C-alpha cells in the first residue's frame, strides 16, 4: 500500500479567512478504496480542508493531485466531474421535496421523446433508482413520495449518503455524518460506510468519535493548527496516541511524508 499511487493528494494547502489562517500548509492523502479518517480538535481546519478539496472554498495556494495529475477544483461541479462527492454536515437536502427529487437534484432524468424535450421529468424512473440505492445501503424509507421534512435524522443522513455514493466514482467525503444521530442510527451509518468501501470507493470520514473511527477507518490523518501532524494506522496505535497527536501532547511528527 505504501508504494501505491494516492488517489487524491493535497500538498501545502493554505487558506485564510480575513486575518485568520485556517490552513497553514496542510497535506492530506487518500488512497484508492480506503476509509481514511480526518481528525483534529475544533479549529484544526478539518472542515476547511474538506471544503477546499470539494470546491466549496478554493484554496489560496497549494497543489491538489488527482491520480497523480495536478487538478483545479474551484467549484463543486469540478470536484464532481472527477468523481468526488460530498455528504455535507448540514446534508444539503431540500426538505420540502421527496427523497428521489433530492437524489437527482441537478441530474434529473427526463422522459423519453418529445415530452422530455419539453422538460417533463421521469419521476417513476428516478423513484425506482432511488429505492434501489436506498435498499442497497440499507436505508429504510417507507414512503418515498413524502417530503424529506417528514423523515427522521437517520433517514435524512441515509438519503444524503445514498446520493453521494450513487454519483461518486472515486471518493466520498463525509463531514461528521454521525454527529447528530442516536446510537442505532449511528450504527446504520457505520454499516453504510463499510458497504461503500466494499464497492471500491474511497471514503474520507471527518469525525470526533474515536471508537467509531477505530471501527471503520483503515488509516487516520491528524490535523492540528492547520497542518497535518500525524498519519497513523488504527491497528498500530491506541486511542490515547491519537488524542495526544490531536492535542500536540506528543509529536509523531511525520511531516513531509514517508
Amino acid at each position: 500500500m505504501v508504494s501505491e499511487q494516492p488517489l487524491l493528494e493535497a500538498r501545502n494547502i493554505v487558506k485564510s479567512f480575513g486575518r485568520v489562517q485556517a490552513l497553514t500548509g496542510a497535506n492530506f492523502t487518500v488512497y484508492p478504496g480506503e476509509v481514511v479518517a480526518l481528525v483534529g480538535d475544533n479549529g484544526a481546519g478539518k472542515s476547511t480542508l474538506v471544503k477546499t478539496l470539494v470546491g466549496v472554498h478554493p484554496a489560496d495556494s497549494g497543489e491538489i493531485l488527482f491520480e497523480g495529475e495536478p487538478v483545479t477544483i474551484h467549484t463543486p461541479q469540478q470536484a464532481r466531474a472527477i468523481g468526488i462527492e460530498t455528504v455535507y454536515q448540514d446534508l444539503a437536502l431540500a426538505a420540502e421535496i421527496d427523497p428521489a427529487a433530492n437524489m437527482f437534484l441537478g441530474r434529473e432524468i427526463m422522459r423519453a421523446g418529445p415530452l422530455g424535450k419539453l422538460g417533463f421529468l421521469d419521476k417513476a424512473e428516478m423513484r425506482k433508482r432511488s429505492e434501489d440505492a436506498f435498499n442497497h445501503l440499507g436505508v429504510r424509507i417507507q414512503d418515498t413520495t413524502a417530503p424529506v421534512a417528514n423523515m427522521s435524522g437517520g433517514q435524512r443522513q441515509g438519503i444524503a449518503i445514498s446520493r453521494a455514493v450513487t454519483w461518486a466514482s472515486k471518493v466520498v467525503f463525509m463531514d461528521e455524518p454521525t454527529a447528530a444521530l442516536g446510537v442505532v442510527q449511528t450504527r446504520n451509518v457505520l454499516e453504510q460506510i463499510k458497504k461503500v468501501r466494499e464497492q471500491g470507493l474511497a471514503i474520507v470520514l471527518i469525525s470526533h468519535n474515536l471508537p467509531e473511527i477505530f471501527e471503520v477507518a483503515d488509516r487516520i490523518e491528524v490535523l492540528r493548527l492547520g497542518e497535518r501532524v500525524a498519519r497513523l494506522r488504527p491497528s498500530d496505535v491506541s486511542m490515547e496516541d491519537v488524542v495526544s497527536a490531536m492535542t500536540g501532547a506528543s509529536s509523531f511528527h511525520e511531516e513531509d511524508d514517508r
Partner: protein
Amino acid sequence: MSEPTAPAEERPPSTLQRIASGSSTQIGLILVALIVVFSLLSFESFFAIANARNIATDAAVLLVLAVGATYIIITAGIDLSVGAVLVFSGVVAAKAMNGLGGESLGVILVGLVVSLAAGLAWGLFNGFLVAKAKIPAFIVTLGSLGMALGGAYLITGGVDEREVPFKLVANFGIGRVAGIPYLVLVALAVAIVLGVVLAQTRFGRYTYAIGSNEEAVRRSGVNVDRHLIKVYALAGLLSGLAGFMNLARFGTTTIGGHATDNLNAIAAVVIGGTSLFGGIGTVLGTVFGVFIPAVLQNGFVIVGVQAFWQQVAVGGVLIAAVYLDQLRRSRQRQ
C-alpha cells in the same frame, strides 16, 4: 438483514390520508362548502348563469396574476409589482394600438405583443435585481411598483387612455365560446399549462427546490440565479397578459383601479395553501384561493349581507391559512 429500526409512526400515510392532509384539497372543500351554502340560501340567483359568469370573469384577471405569484412565493420570494406592471403594460399597449390606429386584427396583436413585452421587461428587471444584486424581493418589487405606476402616469399624463380598438372589447373582452367568456378560457389555459409545468417539469422541480433550500440547490450545480430570473420574468409576462385582458374587459386603462391587485394575488396564493416560507404550493390551490373571495363577494350580495363583510371574511381566511401552514411546519420540524 436486521430487524426494522424505524418506529411505528414512520409508517407511510395512506393515499386517503395524504389527500385529506393536502392543503389544496382542504381549501377546495371549503370552496365547495361555500358554494353549497350560498346556493341553499338562494339557489336561483347564485346558480344563475349570469352570476357564475360574473364571478368567473372577475376572477380571470386575478387568476393570471396569482399563477405568477404562486411560482414566486414557492421560491420564497414575493412580487408586489404585479398590479403596477399590469397597468403599465395596458397603458403602453393602448398607446401602441392607438398610435397605429384602426381596428384590424394586426393592430390588436401588436397591442398584445407590446403588453407582453412590457410585462416581461419589468419581470426581468425584478429578477435580475433579486438574483444578481441580492436585494430583498420585497424591496425590489416595491421599487418597481412605484416605477411602473409612475411610468404609466407619465406616459398618459395622468388621464386614463379611454380609446382601445372596439373589436378588442367586443370580441375578446365580452365574447364567449359555449357560454364561457374568452377571458376565463385564457385564464384557465394559463392555470392548466403552468400548473402542469410546476408539477411535472424540471423547471417546476427547481422552483420548489430553491424555495426549500437554495444553498443545497446551488451546491448541486444548478444555476439558481438564472432560474430565479426566469421565475420573476414569468410573473412579469403574466402581468403583461393580465394588463391586456384588463384592457379588453374594460376598454380603458383603469390606472387607478389596481392598487391592491398585488395583495389580492398574494392572498389568493396563500389561501390556496402555498407557503410564504417557500417550497410548498400548487396552482390548483391558487385557483381555489382566487375563487373563494370571488364567491364570498357574490354570495354576500345575493343573500343580502353587506358586501363589506367579504373583506373581513377574506382577511380572516388569510390569517387562518398562514397559521395552519405554520402549525404544519412546526409539526414537521420537531
